[in-house]
């Protein structure tokens, strides 16, 4: 078994050698006739304006953060998935422990907590990609998040404007239901 891990290591070095050998051969063979225009960053033929290393959308960061939470929790499901069969049959790693249905219930409880986490970020609106700035924080644009109705930034701006107008206008009569 440990011999196999060694195999993997040696195989990894085969891949490393393959990749860097290719790069080396190419660096020997290819021409080098660099010009200032050639070294420009591509921007559809226009002259490059500014650096690309600017602030990017915070939502990528939020998604990464939510991913980290879930990935770590799912990592704890691996041992559960691995021993569940043994735990039920009282064999292998779980022999003599008699944790059968307890193990199953633990799994359910754990996934239920995971699910609560998902519900939490869902309600916070961190899973919605199209957001509108309203008041002091970003919020999901539509409560029902039906995507057909969400399209461009311009739509969102129009919506904000409309709401601002509605807020200024005198409140309409409440309709009888």
């Amino acid at each position, binding site marked *: *078994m440990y011999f*196999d891990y060694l*195999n*993997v290591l040696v*195989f*990894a070095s*085969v*891949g*490393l050698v393959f*990749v*860097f050998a*290719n*790069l080396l*051969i*190419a*660096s020997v*063979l*290819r021409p080098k006739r660099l010009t200032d225009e*050639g*070294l*420009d*960053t*591509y*921007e559809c033929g226009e002259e*490059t304006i500014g650096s*690309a*290393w600017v602030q*990017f*959308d915070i939502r990528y960061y939020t*998604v990464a953060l939510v*991913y980290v939470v*879930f*990935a770590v929790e*799912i990592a704890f499901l*691996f041992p559960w*998935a*691995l021993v*569940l*069969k*043994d*735990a*039920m*049959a*009282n*064999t*292998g790693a779980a022999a003599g422990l008699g944790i*059968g*249905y307890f193990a*199953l219930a633990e*799994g*359910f409880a754990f*996934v239920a907590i995971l*699910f609560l986490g*998902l519900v939490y970020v*869902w309600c916070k609106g961190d899973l*919605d*990609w*199209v957001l509108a700035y309203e008041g002091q924080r970003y919020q999901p644009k539509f409560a029902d*998040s039906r*995507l057909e109705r969400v399209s461009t930034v311009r739509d969102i701006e129009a919506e904000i404007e409309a709401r601002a107008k509605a807020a200024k206008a005198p409140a309409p009569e409440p309709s009888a239901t």
Partner: protein
Amino acid sequence: MDKSLLSDVPQVAIWIARVVVIFGGLVTTAALMSLAERKVSAWMQYRYGPNRVGPFGLLQPLADGLKFLFKEELIPAGANKLLFRLAPAMAAIPSMMTIAVIPIGTLVIDGDTIPLSIAPGVDLGIMYMLALGGLAVYGAILGGWASNSKYSLMGGLRASAQMISYELSLILSILVAVVLSGSLDLTKIVEAQSHGFWNVFTPFGFVAFVLFTIASFAETNRHPFDFAECEPELVGGFHTEYSAMRFALFFLGEYCAMTVMACLNVTLFLGGPSLPFLENTPWWLGIPVFLLKAAFFLFLFIWVRWTLPRFRFDQLMRLGWKVALPIALANLLVAGAWVAFTTKGG
């Protein structure tokens, strides 16, 4: 017969032969995929596709490779040189390495059984694949950031966001196969299915199979989820600024990742090198059967690309987080409960 044919051959020679066959096969598959992609798209659009180099254009990948070698390489003046040079290797190497634990089948030569896999006994096979597969994100985001180009940065960010979003449902659907066989060893997962009852034949196995297939499209940045490239808006995505051999490495990494995903799908849910409903599959049928199944999924990658339109990014995120993830979580529980109530003893 007291001496088998292979007893005089040193183990190292057998190991080297296995590495050559599998690694060569993987790289050749990746090269042929680049041809198949153009050929199949041509057939679907009523064109010929590449047909000048060799019979049916079969030598086209070789010609492409030579061209990549002789092309000048440009590194933008504003780029971060070190990361720019490193990123293609970061994308290519992990995706090639993941093939190591896939059991492709067994060869029986004169009574000796040789597993056609580089490391058949790694008991953490799935962990190894996920660990290395996760590294592929670095290639995309480092390449995109280091280029110092707006298109590249956008492509890199999108690629990483989508890869990590779908990784969750990918892992959860893999866990269904783990629960059903009680092992992280891919060889054991195949053994558990080798009597004709594949994981995909159970309802939760089927759901996991569908989720895995969808997630594998997103993981490899393929249509309909190819926001990493997204030609109409991002030019070339995170490899806009790449040229020559380094671009080829990104390409190689993508096709290797697709091949490995297809193999993993076959291994986890479609019984690996076994036939359905048969108690035992003869060993000589195993390898062709495995390759045929994997080839179907590789074709599916191309088929879907030229059939479905691209998603919008918010639709992608919604599908990943609000549809696939809850289904995958619930599915794992159902699979766990089924295993619990059908396992005897305790």
